């Protein structure tokens, strides 16, 4: 409701030319040097960070873990047991644990870049990175299915549901193909990208709107109230974003695990 009020307060100002609401262009940051942009630096930084941290955590591999190793094992064990083993089953899950573990940390760290001061930009609000990961997950689960059932076996396995026969198949097969092969990577990528994009856009909106109302617009009581509320909303949305950033990493990983599980499942 507050957001709605704020939008009506801001809208006339935007048309009046005083305040320019943030848009997709705000995500198109100028290159730092040459062709290198901020998200590029961040994604490389995330990989270095993740490897350094997880290596430091796992290096000793002690039977009685220290604090650092315990933290690492908590995350690794969570992905390994709660996501990979519970979805895929104890027979095949170990093959996919490295991928799922890396995927979870990669998405998690890049999402939380959106909240870390000075970095403050979620890498996956640039759709290209999300497409890349979704494509990898798509290759992984389809590849796993073909490895398990053979190419034609897998296509049959994934498009023909058990217990269905006759002319209905003419309807079912294209639908299953669409939902299992075509739509899955798209939703996987868009879910991550859109959440990060929208969340960051909201934060920019409340931060810039509050700043404008308090410091640039005429200091009427209405404007001051609106500006303060805008900053309050900034904190509220930040708290929500902290949750969303974790959830998106978790959901991306869990869905990949479930797609793999469906692909390598025994024939029904």
């Amino acid at each position: 409701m507050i957001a709605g009020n704020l939008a009506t307060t801001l809208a006339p100002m935007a048309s009046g030319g005083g305040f320019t609401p943030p848009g997709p262009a705000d995500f198109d940051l100028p290159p730092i040097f040459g062709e290198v942009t901020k998200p590029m630096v961040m994604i490389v930084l995330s990989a270095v960070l993740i490897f350094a941290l997880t290596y430091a955590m796992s290096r000793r591999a002690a039977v009685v873990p220290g604090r650092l190793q315990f933290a690492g094992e908590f995350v690794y064990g969570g992905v390994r047991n709660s996501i990979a083993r519970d979805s895929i089953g104890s027979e095949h899950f170990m093959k996919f644990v490295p991928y799922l573990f890396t995927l979870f940390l990669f998405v998690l760290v890049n999402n939380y870049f959106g909240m870390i001061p000075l970095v403050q930009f979620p890498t996956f609000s640039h759709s290209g990175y999300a497409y890349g990961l979704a494509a990898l997950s798509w290759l992984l689960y389809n590849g796993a299915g073909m490895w398990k059932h053979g190419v034609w076996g897998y296509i049959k396995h994934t498009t023909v549901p058990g217990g269905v026969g006759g002319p209905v198949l003419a309807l079912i097969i294209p639908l299953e193909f669409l939902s299992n092969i075509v739509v899955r990577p798209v939703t996987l990528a868009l879910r991550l990208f859109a959440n990060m994009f929208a969340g960051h856009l909201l934060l920019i909106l409340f931060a810039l709107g509050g700043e404008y109302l308090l410091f640039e617009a005429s200091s009427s009581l209405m404007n001051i109230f609106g500006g303060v509320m805008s900053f309050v909303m900034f904190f509220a949305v930040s708290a929500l974003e902290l949750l969303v950033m974790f959830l998106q990493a978790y959901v991306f990983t869990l869905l990949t695990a479930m797609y793999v599980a469906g692909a390598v499942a025994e024939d029904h």
Partner: protein
Amino acid sequence: MRDSIQAAEELNPLIPHLSEIILGTAVFLVLLFAVAKFVVPNFERAFAERTKAIEGGLEAAETKQAAADAKLAELEQQLAEARHEAARIREEAREQGAQIIAEMRQQAQTEADRIVGAGKAQIEAERQQAVTSLRAEVGTLATSLAGRIVGESLADDERSARVVDRFLADLESLEGTSR
């Protein structure tokens, strides 16, 4: 930022930069390789060693438990044997005691009977002797007494013997009725 509205019309965030897809994928694959090669095996090693340590500990504890159980069973067996032995010995002792008491009682009885028999025989002999001497003396005394009372000597031996015998017979019959 000022020109973002104009720029937004040209910029669709859904359309990616190809360079970003390639870079993101490449960085992820490098990270995946590094994690799979250097991190995951370490975590797995730690897990496996922990499992082994716990299982080893459990196994050792089970062995010790089994040994302790065996020892306990052995001791209980020994204890039961000892109890049994003790009960047997006690029973034997009781039997022997009873036997000894019976024998002693038998001996004592025999001895007592013997002593009583000897005493009786002696008493009988002495009584017999007393009776004999009494009879002789009583005859003499009574005759002399009667002679004094009657005032004349019962010179007639035959008559006096008759009197004495009658007296004694009366005495004996008196004794017999009083007994």
